[in-house]
């Protein structure tokens, strides 16, 4: 084939690959939330092609969720049974679920009744509905956390930045509304949620130093899992699929060259 112009196949493929990579890189670069400092990028255990969720961080993160976040925030897309995926035994999950009450029914008499939650139930929310939630939180509605890591620009870096981004001293001239808190990375800097984590907010069973940064890291890892529980399976399968595709495509290229060689 004649390839005198710029349309050569090799350049084409490079261009497509480059376009794909560029768009992939472009997204995380534009992280700076309006007016705030640029989000710090963290080396999360779940980053990268081979990334997995740090099991210790998941357990500690679940502890933080249970002891701190769960008093206001629901996690309604996650079921208790899902905890088995991050290292809880079946019995531990049963026990854990049974601490919560869910409404079931109607029974044979036509009445609704309460029963302990089962592993198949989704995490029981702290409030029955949005109105109850607002009534208990000075009008604010603590959002569900199931997809939080995927639902904000910057993902885990944003969440981490938000959790450690509370400042006592306001910048000059900043007017803080009543009952609000100043946060460096929250859009508009006024957030209804008070600082949820401090040093030693929870005591870790595994002896990890309970600093604010450690807390923020652990809960972010846990919520990243809650948002993308399929990630480890996805990446594991992805590596196999891509390895196959590389070999397959290489063989097809060799075959293509062989078949086309007969033409000239």
């Amino acid at each position, binding site marked *: 084939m*004649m390839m005198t112009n710029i349309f050569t196949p090799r350049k084409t*493929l490079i261009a497509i690959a480059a376009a794909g990579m560029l*768009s992939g890189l472009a997204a995380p670069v534009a992280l700076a939330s309006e007016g705030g400092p640029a989000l710090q990028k963290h080396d999360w255990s779940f980053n990268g092609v081979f990334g997995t969720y740090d099991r210790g961080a998941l357990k500690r993160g679940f502890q933080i969720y249970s002891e701190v976040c769960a008093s206001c925030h629901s996690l309604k897309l996650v079921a208790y049974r899902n905890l088995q995926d991050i290292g809880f035994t079946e019995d531990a999950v049963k026990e854990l679920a049974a601490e919560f009450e869910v409404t079931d029914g109607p029974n044979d008499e036509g009445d609704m009744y309460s029963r302990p939650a089962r592993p198949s139930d989704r995490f029981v929310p702290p409030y029955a509905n949005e109105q109850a939630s607002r009534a208990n939180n000075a009008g604010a509605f603590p959002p569900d956390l199931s997809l939080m890591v995927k639902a904000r620009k910057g*993902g885990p870096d944003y969440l981490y930045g938000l959790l450690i981004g509370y400042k006592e001293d306001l910048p000059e001239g900043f007017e803080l509304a009543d009952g609000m808190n100043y946060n460096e990375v929250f859009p508009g800097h006024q957030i209804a949620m008070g600082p949820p984590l401090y040093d030693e907010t929870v005591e870790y069973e595994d002896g990890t130093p309970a600093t604010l940064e450690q807390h923020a890291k652990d809960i972010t890892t846990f919520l990243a899992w809650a948002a993308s529980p399929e990630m480890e399976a996805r990446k594991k399968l992805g590596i196999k699929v891509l390895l196959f595709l590389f070999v397959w495509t290489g063989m097809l290229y060799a075959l293509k060259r062989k078949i*086309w060689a007969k*033409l000239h």
Partner: protein
Amino acid sequence: MKFGTNLILPVLDWVDYRLPVFSYARDNLIDYPTPKNLNYWWNFGSLAGILLMIMIITGFFLAINYSPHTEFAFASVEHVMRDVNYGWLLRFMHSNGASMFFVLVYIHMFRGLYYGSYKAPRELLWIIGVCIYLAMMGTAFMGYVLPWGQMSYWGATVITSLFSAVPIIGDTIVTWLWGGFVIDNNTLTRFFVGHYLMPAVIYMLVIVHMWALHQHKSNNPLGVDMKSTADSIPFHPYYTIKDMFGLGVFMIIYMGIVFFAPDMFGEPDNYIEANPLVTPPHIVPEWYFLPFYAILRSIENKLVGVIAMFAGVGILFALPWMDRCRVRSAKFRPIYRQFFWIFVFDCLVLGYIGAQAAVEPYVTIGRIATAYYFAHFLIVCPMICKFEKPLEPPESISSAILKSEQEKTAKGAG
């Protein structure tokens, strides 16, 4: 068609005599004469066809797990992601497949623009292609509403509200589209039905597209007709293997995104359930609509803006009569070739502007880019046609190949 005389093959003859599927496949897939000089830009049509099948299959499996009801839609998508076996794979293949579909089709269209594939006698082939593109846009728009996230809801609000700009019957059209006076369950249900129906329309249009293609066969980088058997090669094995190799490269990129960056094209806001009371700070459509979104926002008058946006696609129908230069390929059109790249750049600028907030300097840049977009079709193409002196295309495909090989040999000797 004679298959043979053993035990099974006569059955094929029997069938073929009554319903010539085998002869048809031979004529159109195997012996089908194809220009011998197609480059890799000719891979994208068949790739788009394969991706259409992937979309239909993954779409079927998603649909059987999805609830088109405002109360359950968002949760049912998460049910697919979390509880359905390999549901995450189906969903990520489908959502990223939509983006990849547009990547392929845009490259396919720009290839047609560069090599003059819309020119006689392929005007209808091009027009049917534009129809497919329009059907794809409608399908993609309705599909994006189905997860019922914040961008789904607000994107649907912005786009459907455009129709209210139509004089007199505008509001009636919007009410009819919504199935009520607000975007609600009726809207979601009809969008789901539409999204499931439209691929059938696309599929049929693709068949007609193939029909028109096989009438005059593929254009080629030289833009000259196939004149003798020396110019063509059978589709199989030459282009089957070349398309397969291209498919492999495409799948590496597509699967790379599906498995390792599945939310790359998505907006984080769409992981928040639709809430009619909270408007997101920036409502942006999917990236493949951005150039047209930029055109829409460049014009202050709502009605004119809407007309301009649709005209942005509609003008493609007229292209075969805007550019009447008899030489097809930009290879032999020194002036057009430069303006082609300016036009590509203009489309990219429009796409970039479509993603920005409507503030200066983006508004002005968007207006200039919009004006140039239309000028390219209405002024630049006809003018080039009038003043450009195209180079003389070669006599035939085979003679051009012979010449270039002789030059190569001469260079090697010298």
